[in-house]
């Protein structure tokens, strides 16, 4: 039999083979979704240690629900974009993790469903075991849209070795120091070019704690206008900027994008770092003795930002068996058992009071996190955000960092920002009105 292959025949076969491969790819692509009945959930994960925690969550879910758990893990920087595309294309998981600052953004646009009906219909579930601040973070427009898995106030980390070396008495473990004392300490501990008193991120996320402590806020109570120009907020902004520009008690800013307070603190030559307990797991790598204390108290006391993350159910989840499974999954992921896994791994303070005992030292004073949340010590302030918080943050991120560099004065920066912030606040109110109307 002849085995000669003409060029035409070869091309024809190649063409058909190509079409076959393309068709097979298309078919397999269409059928590559999760198996029916699987408990799918999405979460950010940027390290092997984080992945280990979520793998353990997955095992716990399978053990509790007796169904396959499929977690879609994405690095934190790309998580929101991926989630958006999944929500739009109807391929989102049954349950999705949300950063607390984005809950109003998603809720107002109808991307996630309210959970009140599911909570009311389930006698086995109660929100009472969740910290009040976590419940507030998970709500929008009077409805619960998300259930927290972690919540924590910003605290002040300090390098015990550095203070001891300088002969400075260690600060009180429970009583917040005043701003004046804090500034004096920072100055005392600074040796230009070698050692610094304080570090924080040159961004609104860190500034807002000082603003709350001074009795101010980013927005008015009705979120209708910016209040950054009010005396309380201005006092706070000027205080922090002075630490950077006038007192120069902070390490020099090398790059506004990559500036990391944790990285500065871990160098061992910075006395105080403003950060949340979610960095405890990383700070444990420090080669010096350190601990945490309550945030310094301003005119309104010690009321740093309290932030948290939650799980929510996308609106695209269909009523019936799919929604039933989503709700069961949601309950499991936020159960005491699951949050015990999370807290034991040291990731952050769990949102449930009953899981609190799993978040254990080091550092020695870690217990203040739960005492602050329970209102027994110092205080905290839920991170107030708008339904267009990305835009607000973006705008503040443009001009505020320049004040840290001394390129622009605080009054000039705020005067320039306020009209544009006011427009965003009005747009936020419009979005809230539309969301209210849509829900009847």
């Amino acid at each position, binding site marked *: 039999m002849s085995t000669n292959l003409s060029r035409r025949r070869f091309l024809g076969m190649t063409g058909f083979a190509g079409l076959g491969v393309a068709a097979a790819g298309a078919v397999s692509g269409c059928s590559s979704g999760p198996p029916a009945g699987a408990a799918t959930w999405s979460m950010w994960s940027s390290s092997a240690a984080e992945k280990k925690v979520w793998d353990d969550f997955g095992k716990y879910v399978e053990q509790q629900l007796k169904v396959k758990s499929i977690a879609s893990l994405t690095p934190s920087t790309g998580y929101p974009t991926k989630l958006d595309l999944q*929500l739009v294309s109807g391929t989102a998981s049954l349950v999705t993790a949300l950063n607390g600052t984005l809950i109003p953004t998603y809720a107002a*646009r*109808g991307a996630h469903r309210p959970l009140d009906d599911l909570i009311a219909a389930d006698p086995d579930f109660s929100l009472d075991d969740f910290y009040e601040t976590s419940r507030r973070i998970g709500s929008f427009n009077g409805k619960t849209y998300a259930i927290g898995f972690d919540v924590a106030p910003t605290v002040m980390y300090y390098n015990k070795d550095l203070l001891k070396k300088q002969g400075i008495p260690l600060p009180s473990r429970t009583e917040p120091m005043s701003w004046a004392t804090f500034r004096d300490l920072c100055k005392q501990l600074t040796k230009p070019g070698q050692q610094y008193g304080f570090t924080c991120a040159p961004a609104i996320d860190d500034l807002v704690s000082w603003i709350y402590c001074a009795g101010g806020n980013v927005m008015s109570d009705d979120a209708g206008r910016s209040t950054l120009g009010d005396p309380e907020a201005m006092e706070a902004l000027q205080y922090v900027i002075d630490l950077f520009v006038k007192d120069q008690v902070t390490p*020099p800013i090398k*790059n*506004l*994008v990559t500036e990391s307070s944790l990285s500065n603190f871990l160098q061992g030559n910075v006395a105080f770092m403003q950060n949340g307990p979610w960095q405890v797991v990383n700070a444990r790598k420090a080669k010096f003795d350190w601990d945490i204390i309550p945030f310094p108290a301003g005119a309104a006391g010690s009321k740093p930002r309290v932030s948290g993350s939650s799980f929510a159910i996308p*609106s695209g989840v269909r009523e019936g068996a799919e929604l039933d499974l989503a709700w069961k999954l949601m309950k499991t992921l936020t159960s005491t058992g699951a949050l015990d896994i999370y807290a034991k791994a040291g990731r952050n303070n769990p949102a449930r009071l009953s899981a609190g005992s799993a978040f254990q030292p080091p550092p020695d004073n870690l217990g203040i996190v739960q005492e602050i949340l329970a209102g027994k010590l110092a205080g905290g302030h839920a991170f107030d955000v708008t339904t267009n918080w990305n835009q607000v943050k973006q705008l503040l991120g*443009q001009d505020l960092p320049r004040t840290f*560099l001394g390129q622009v004065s605080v009054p000039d920066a705020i005067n320039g920002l306020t009209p544009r912030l006011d427009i965003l606040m009005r747009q936020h109110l419009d979005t809230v009105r539309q969301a209210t109307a849509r829900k009847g």
Partner: protein
Amino acid sequence: MALSTADTAPSVSTPTPTRPTSPPTPRWRSREALTAWLFILPSLIGFLIFTAGPVVAAGVISLLNWNLFSAPTWAGLHNFARLGPDPTFWSALGNTAYFTLVSVPLTIVVSLALALPLNQGVRRVAVFRSLLLLPYATITVAVAFVWIWLYIPHDGLVNAVLGWFGIHGPAWLISDGWAMPALILMSVWKSFGFGMVVFLAGLQAIPQQLYEAGRVDGTSPWNSFRHITLPMLSPALFFVIVTSVIGSFQVFDQALIMTNGGPGTRTTTLVMYIYRTGFENYDQGYAAAQSLVLFAFIVMITAGQFLFQRKLVHYDN
């Protein structure tokens, strides 16, 4: 002169029996044309799905108010009207133009300056060519992070080198005046390799007889470069200019990683603003309107370049 009957009689052609012929096959249905279409098809399908389709979709989306999650509503030309009073849009457009106007000529000069000596029979030219092409072959994210370290104000390599000459270097990436030049410098370093390889190919295609004739006529090296090299290299030059301008208008990743558009909006580029508008602010309609304006700019500039090339670009044939 009498005319013969043969001259005057009407000629009568004898009908020859012919087979009935079918109308000629149109060129596009010929076997060669069909084969050509078959080869083009994969690329064409890709173009329609991933390029033409999104452009048409952007045109439609630009006429809508759409936050991604809710049903879109009709906006007409409102999204285009929003461009006028939006200071960030104009700032981003200005930054992009600044980037393009400085980075493209610089890249071309550097590429050509490196291609010319490499064309002079340098030993191990392949090694040099490969080394110089490395920055272009490296992903921008990695390059951007390396340059962030190089630009560190106090102990970065760039300022350390400047310090050897008694120059106190600026805080590159956080300085109002230096952030954009810093991005341009990094981008030129990243992309000169591509132009260099294209120029090198163009230089190697120039017939040596032209230079020999020039030498016989006593042409100086500068005149030889000006009157032989540049005209003969003009198609390659044109190609590099067009691709560089288009690439510069789309600059995004290095600005996002190295400065995040700051300080202020000094390095916010148009593509970065489009991305933020669409995917961080969930304003898809406005983002689509901006992207169409960018598309129009690129089309106009490229069309202008094509018109201009008729006078300045010399093709061998």
